């Protein structure tokens, strides 16, 4: 595997939930609680989990939308917390994001060309002609005609808007794109277009993706490796094939059991796991998954398992494999 682009180590983000009258917070929501992930050059890391698991907070931390409570995020070997001035701008140029809702991510009052050109205007002093040329190039990259630049976003369908958002993310010398559920809001027949387009762009440009999603089949399809997140922690990481072949953590297994079949013959009679994700305000002791875990043992409610190497590569945090 090539060199790591993004390395997240022991990342924590706590939000104050209730404040005392004086002084600090009385309780904390541990949205992200010791997360380690690595994204290599030209690779897609899938980050999967249910709502409230901390995957969106993780992406906000990487995008400098929030500051971590503890832990480090390094990009190409440098801690991004220490970046200042032109180094910081270089990071902002190298890391871009595509959000879920293409109707919210394009300003209704700006022309498509200006939307895509914005990062260039912020970071470079290119002449108008050079900017227009670059905009035309990325529009072609994402499968749109360069002459759509003067149009407004409302003239495009959801899938086309998402292409515009991707074009914008590519307009600078981007090395990492955070894809935050980029196809969840699209029509089914359009989803495959966007996924395929993203895969092609990665092959052509060598850009890395952090693909955040909740749909196992989609995440597994586009990702090289997958990290499964539950209540602020990574419970299992593995190569996509290895994880699909043998999910080891009971939560990963539950996700697979809950995944929808791709053929009526694949219907399983195994029941989905019971219960719901507990509130991040009052985390269970020991392993966070133990109240819902079908194979919970006494030790699970006392000692929190740590990530250990698992069979077939990757890591798993579960007492079953101690």
């Amino acid at each position: 595997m090539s060199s790591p682009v993004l390395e997240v180590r022991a990342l924590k983000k706590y939000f104050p939930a209730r404040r005392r009258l004086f002084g600090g917070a009385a309780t904390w929501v541990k949205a992200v609680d010791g997360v380690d992930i690595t994204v290599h050059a030209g690779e897609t890391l899938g980050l999967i989990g249910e709502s409230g698991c901390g995957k969106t907070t993780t992406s906000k931390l990487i995008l400098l939308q929030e500051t971590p409570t503890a832990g480090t995020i390094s990009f190409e070997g440098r801690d991004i917390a220490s970046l200042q001035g032109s180094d910081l701008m270089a990071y902002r140029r190298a890391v871009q994001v595509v959000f879920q809702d293409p109707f919210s991510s394009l300003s209704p009052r700006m022309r498509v060309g200006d939307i895509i050109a914005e990062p260039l205007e912020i970071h470079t002093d290119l002449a108008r002609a050079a900017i227009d040329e670059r905009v035309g190039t990325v529009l072609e990259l994402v499968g749109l005609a360069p002459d759509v630049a003067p149009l407004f976003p409302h003239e495009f369908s959801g899938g086309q808007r998402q292409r515009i958002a991707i074009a914008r993310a590519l307009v600078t010398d981007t090395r990492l794109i955070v894809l935050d559920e980029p196809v969840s809001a699209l029509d089914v027949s359009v989803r495959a277009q966007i996924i395929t387009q993203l895969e092609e762009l990665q092959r052509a440009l060598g850009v890395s993706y952090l693909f955040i999603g909740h749909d196992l089949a989609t995440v597994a399809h586009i990702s090289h490796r997958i990290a499964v997140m539950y209540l602020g922690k990574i419970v299992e990481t593995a190569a996509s094939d290895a994880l699909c072949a043998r999910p080891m953590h009971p939560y990963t297994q539950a996700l697979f059991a809950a995944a929808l079949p791709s053929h009526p013959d694949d219907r399983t009679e195994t029941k989905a796991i019971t219960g719901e994700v507990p509130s991040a305000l009052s985390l269970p002791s020991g392993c966070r998954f133990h109240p819902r875990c079908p194979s919970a043992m006494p030790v699970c409610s006392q000692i929190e398992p740590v990530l250990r190497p698992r069979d077939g590569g990757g890591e798993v945090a579960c007492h079953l494999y101690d």
Partner: protein
Amino acid sequence: MATIPANTRLAARRTASGWLGALVKAAREAPLMAVIILGGLVLVALLADLIAPYDPTLPVKGAEMFVPPFWMEGGSVATPLGTDFQGRDILSRLIYGARVSLVVGLMGTLVAGGIGTAMGILSGYVGGWVDQIIMRVTDAWLALPAIVFAIFLAAMVGPSMWNIIVILGAVYWTRYARVIRGEVLTLRERDFVKLAEIAGASKLRVIKKHILPNVMNTATVLASLTVGVVIIAEASLSFLGVGVPPPQPAWGLMLSEARPTLMAGQWWLTVFPGACILLIVLATQLFGDWLRVRLDPQTRNL
């Protein structure tokens, strides 16, 4: 599903042809009336020097005081709407008064809108203690009765048209600040604003490129609805003697000066300026209402 909003929109369109139809139709034709009134007044104000028969500040030579309008007994075509207690021509004073009302109305709104929009954006986008301070100030502002506050300020700085404009701007900016702040708070959470921040855009750039263009609609509608309020405030201040100083012709001042004769049967001294105020405020409100419907993205596509 996307069909649902489309359907409800279609449904709304259908009801418009029913009992609501008359109302909707009236609202559509309202701007025409409003535009005619406002356009007429602007024209009159601009061409006041040409069309006013007399100097509004001096008595008409040879005319008496309290000459009634021409159609009444004792009236004269030379002073078609009569003369006031100094023998000045009412029509000429009304024509020049339109200038004062429009200038104060528009400029006052501009000042209020400028301060209010800036404060609203600052408060909503920067947030934190800036937001706290601005919002507490607007709270305090709103707690004071606007007119009393304006009188107080006018008494401090002395009466003049330009002072009135600044004072009214300073009194009425708070409503802008509140509405714009609310708008900015929702805009700030939109993905395109986040994308600009993630791309490294400075706060100033985000405000200029993303926030301001998206609050301009609201600000425009608010402005069109504020003009009337400012005009009434100006008239009230002038009426109370802390507005435009005599002998300048302002509608509010004319009302004030005519007050002692109100009971004496010289109705033309009060009715004409009163009608002018009513007309201009009505016209701006109608126009503002029409603008609000036009600029509302929910109804624009109908």
